[in-house]
């Protein structure tokens, strides 16, 4: 714990205003409960997710650069994005603006035509919600605040693709003890363990849920998700903890689709790590939006004394 990040700019992104509403709610509540201040970026725009880059990658860089310029204008040197897609794209923009002259030119041109500050690499640091809690509070800080231990809850920690890949856009990762690993990430494991959860040894932490094709190639996505779900069950997990709204919604959607279309029923629950941490801090399931999840985990939470 370094005590940084107590007051950061907050970029929720489109998913957190739609299907990932529960992630937005639980992130804000968690911040409140931990005394961390989040100030939402004023008038932010979509990061382009996984789609705009397929129209043109430099345009996607511009979309993220605009958001970073807002953080800069608001006087923040750190922006926190809980969504893996947003986080990834802000990081990618930072990398491209630092290393690629053509990306800088497109960004300068579009920013000046659109009439706002041209963002330049190095001005704002992008962090994920995991970095935020890990650095601002840390495991020890979290342990001291736990009111309702997650003990007895077996958790598979699932990070997805965009939190660690490709490696080169995350220069702060893989830097030895204390830093995040891109091959075997552990920040979420660390935080949930501090809250009392029993993490299972889940081999698919960074496997893909097929989120990019969740609608356009649903059968592939369902197969990938079913693998994640059945493996979590085989590892003995009660719940899969997520830190990305696309993964989270993908797991929920395709859990239902696997049952309806493939006839394969799985019962493992799916919760955002912010929901689990919030409940460990004594917040009610309702306060962290458990009722807003597609997957109904109320029975499990009651059984574990959390609901």
């Amino acid at each position, binding site marked *: 714990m370094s005590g940084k990040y107590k007051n950061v700019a907050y970029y929720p992104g*489109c998913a957190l205003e739609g299907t990932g509403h529960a992630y937005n709610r639980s992130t804000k509540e968690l911040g409140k409960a931990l005394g961390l201040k989040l100030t939402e970026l004023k008038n932010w725009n979509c990061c382009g997710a996984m789609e705009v880059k397929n129209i043109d990658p430099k345009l996607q860089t511009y979309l993220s650069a605009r958001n970073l310029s807002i953080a800069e204008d608001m006087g923040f040197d750190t922006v926190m994005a809980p969504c893996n897609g947003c986080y990834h794209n802000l990081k990618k923009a930072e990398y491209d603006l630092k290393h690629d002259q053509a990306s800088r030119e497109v960004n300068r041109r579009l920013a000046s035509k659109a009439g706002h500050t041209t963002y330049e690499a190095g001005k704002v640091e992008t962090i994920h919600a995991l970095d935020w809690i890990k650095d601002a509070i840390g495991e020890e800080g979290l342990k001291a605040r736990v009111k309702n231990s997650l003990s007895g809850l077996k958790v598979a920690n699932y990070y997805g693709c965009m939190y660690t890949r490709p490696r080169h856009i995350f220069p702060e990762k893989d830097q030895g003890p204390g830093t995040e690993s891109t091959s075997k990430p552990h920040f979420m494991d660390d935080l949930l363990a501090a809250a009392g959860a029993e993490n299972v040894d889940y081999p698919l932490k960074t496997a893909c849920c097929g989120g990019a094709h969740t609608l356009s190639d649903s059968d592939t996505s369902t197969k990938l998700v079913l693998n994640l779900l059945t493996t979590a069950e085989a590892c003995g997990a009660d719940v899969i903890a997520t830190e990305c709204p696309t993964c989270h919604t993908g797991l929920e959607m395709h859990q239902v689709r696997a049952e309806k279309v493939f006839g394969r029923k799985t019962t493992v629950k799916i919760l955002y790590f912010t929901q689990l941490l919030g409940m460990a801090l004594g917040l009610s399931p309702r306060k962290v939006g458990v009722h807003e999840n597609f997957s109904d985990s109320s029975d499990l939470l009651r059984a574990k004394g959390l609901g």
Partner: protein
Amino acid sequence: MPIHEKSLIRPENLVTHDQLTLEGVDVSGHWSTFITSRAVTDYNEVMQEEIAALPGGEFIHRCWQCGSCTNACTVNAINPDFNPRYWIYLIRMGMEEELLRDKDIIWQCVSCNKCTYACPRDVNPEGVMKATAHWLELKGHTEKKPSMVFDEAFSEQVFASGKIEDGKVLRDFFTRTKQPLLQNWLIALVRGLVMRLPVGLLMKLGLATLFHPRTRGWGKARAAIDEYVAERHAADARALHLDAQGAE
């Protein structure tokens, strides 16, 4: 045997003779299976250059065929025909006809970036897959695939208003791909949620679909983006030697 020659041992290229004697040697039957000879003359010598000109394809020339991409590939694990290493080889050799055999699955790359993570030569195979899928569509070898329909529906919303509303993306996609919105699994999913959600939040989510979220003062950004996108489309068409209508 060079990689592309695996095409020679496809069933349609194998020949056995019930009765055949060559230079006094009996070569009848299964033990003397022949491979039909093929001289490759139809190399497409500009294919690599064209794919390299599309976003994502820039570094295809770096590939040294180690196979790390295919080994790491998420989609390859569920469909062994999905083989980025092989396609990169075919593109670099100019073997268009062989590549076209797989034209209907290349778009299925899920952009997990495992290949990009594993690649020792920074080829960016994920980008190459996208560029190749795009090339196949622009050249008219395939119709617009569902992922491109989705990318366009999504991006148009972003360009128009600065934000997306996921319900609208879903509806647009199902409309454009002519699929019914009322899929049984989608109904089950929404029904489960509606049973548990408080009325107030349902109203709020419902209103979000009526009042599309937007970034204020987006007009100038939109104009700048539209102008840039039109330029890029024209540049792509030039690189692929297409005329203004987009046909070859």
